[in-house]
C-alpha cells in the first residue's frame, strides 16, 4: 500500500508543493496534480524525468520515501495531488533511459544558449534590414518569442538549476492520504 503526504508553502502568488510517497513494497506510482499548471523542476532546460504535464511517474522503494516537488500559480487545494496508480515492481529499473527525451535528459542537451542566437533586431542593425530567410523563419522578433518558438518555457520558481525558494509570505498546509 502506498501513501501520500503533502506540504504546501505559499510564496507570494506561487504555491510550492512538496509530496512524499511511501510504500511497504517497491512500487511504480503515478501522481496527478490537481493544481495546474504544474511547473516541475528543470534540469538543463527540461523537466526532470518523470513529469508529463500534471502527471508524475516514479518508483518508490520499499520502506523509502519518494520526494516530489513542483511549483504552481494555482491556489492551494486539499489535496494538491492524488495517487492515481500504484503498480508493484519486482525489480528496480537499471536507470537506462528508454526514450529519446530520456536520453537527452540523462546526457544533457548540446544546444547553444539562447543568447548565442542573434535576434532579428540585431540582424537588422548588422544587415540594413536584409535578414536571411532561414534566420527569419527560425527567430521571431524578440527573445521571448524565440523561447516560445523552440518549445522551451520560461524558467520558473521551480527551476532546480536556480534552487529558487522565496521566503516571503509563506503559509503551510500539511496533509496525508493513503491508497
Amino acid at each position: 500500500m502506498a501513501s501520500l503526504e503533502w506540504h504546501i508553502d505559499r510564496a507570494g502568488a506561487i504555491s510550492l508543493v512538496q509530496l512524499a510517497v511511501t510504500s511497504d513494497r517497491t512500487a511504480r506510482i503515478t501522481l496527478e496534480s490537481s493544481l495546474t499548471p504544474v511547473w516541475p523542476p528543470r534540469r538543463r532546460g527540461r523537466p526532470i524525468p518523470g513529469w508529463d504535464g500534471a502527471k508524475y511517474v516514479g518508483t518508490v522503494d520499499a520502506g523509502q520515501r519518494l520526494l516530489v516537488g513542483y511549483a504552481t500559480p494555482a491556489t492551494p487545494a486539499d489535496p494538491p495531488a492524488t495517487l492515481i496508480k500504484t503498480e508493484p515492481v519486482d525489480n528496480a529499473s537499471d536507470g537506462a533511459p528508454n526514450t529519446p527525451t530520456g536520453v537527452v535528459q540523462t546526457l544533457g542537451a548540446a544546444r547553444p544558449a539562447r543568447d548565442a542566437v542573434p535576434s532579428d533586431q540585431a540582424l537588422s542593425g548588422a544587415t540594413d534590414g536584409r535578414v536571411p530567410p532561414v534566420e527569419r523563419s527560425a527567430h521571431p522578433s524578440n527573445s521571448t518569442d524565440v523561447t516560445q518558438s523552440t518549445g522551451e518555457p520560461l524558467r520558473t520558481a521551480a527551476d532546480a538549476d536556480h534552487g529558487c525558494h522565496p521566503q516571503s509570505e509563506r503559509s503551510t498546509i500539511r496533509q496525508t492520504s493513503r491508497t
Partner: protein
Amino acid sequence: MILTVTAGKGGVGKTTVAYNLAAELGAVVVDADLGMADLPAPAGPDLHDVLAGRARIMEAVHTVSNVAVVPCGRSVAGLRAAEPTRLATVVNKLTEAFDRVVIDAPAGMHGDAGVALFVADAAVIVTRPSRPAVAGAIRTREVTRLLDVPLARVVMNRTSAPGNYEALAATLGAPVTTIAESERVRAAQRAGVPVGAVAPDSDIADRFESLADGLERAL
C-alpha cells in the same frame, strides 16, 4: 538496419568512415552532427529543417556521387531550432524508404550523440592511434553500454604503421578494423565523393569494402 558511426572526439575521421561505409552498403547516410556538420551539403532542406519541423525527411534526402545523403545545416540558428529528440522518429521514417541507414553521429557524449546511438541497431566507434582519441573511444563505449546499443566494430583510422589492437578490442568488446592514413581518402573527401569512386581498385577502397562486408555479416 540502422548503423550509427560515432567517436569520442572530433577529427578522427568519423564522417569519412560514415560516408564511405554508406557508399559500400548502399545506405542513406544522415549527417546527425547537428553542431559540426561535415557531409556534403547540396542546396535545399537539411536535417536542421526536418528537426525543426520545417521540412519532411524525404525532402531532405539528396544524392551526392550516387550516395543518398541527408545533409545538415551549419548555422547556429538552425542548431538552436532543431529538436534532437525528433531524430528517432525521423530515422525510423527513413527506414520505410531505405533498407540501410548510416548515421554520422556527433562526437562526444551529449544528448544529441546519445539519441543518434539510441535509435541504432548497432554502433561503430571510430578512433585514431592517439591517447586522447582512444580515451574518447572508451568513454563513448560507456555510452553505448548505458543505452544498450551493441558495438559492431571499432575503426582504428588513419594509422601510419601496423599495430596490435587486441587489448583495445578486448576492452571495447568488438573487433578492430584498421584503415591507414591515405592521401586518396583525403582527396576523395575534398571532392565530396567516396574513395571507391576515385580509386576503386586501391587498397584503401578494399578496406572500406571489407569493413562493410564484415558489418553485413555481423548484423
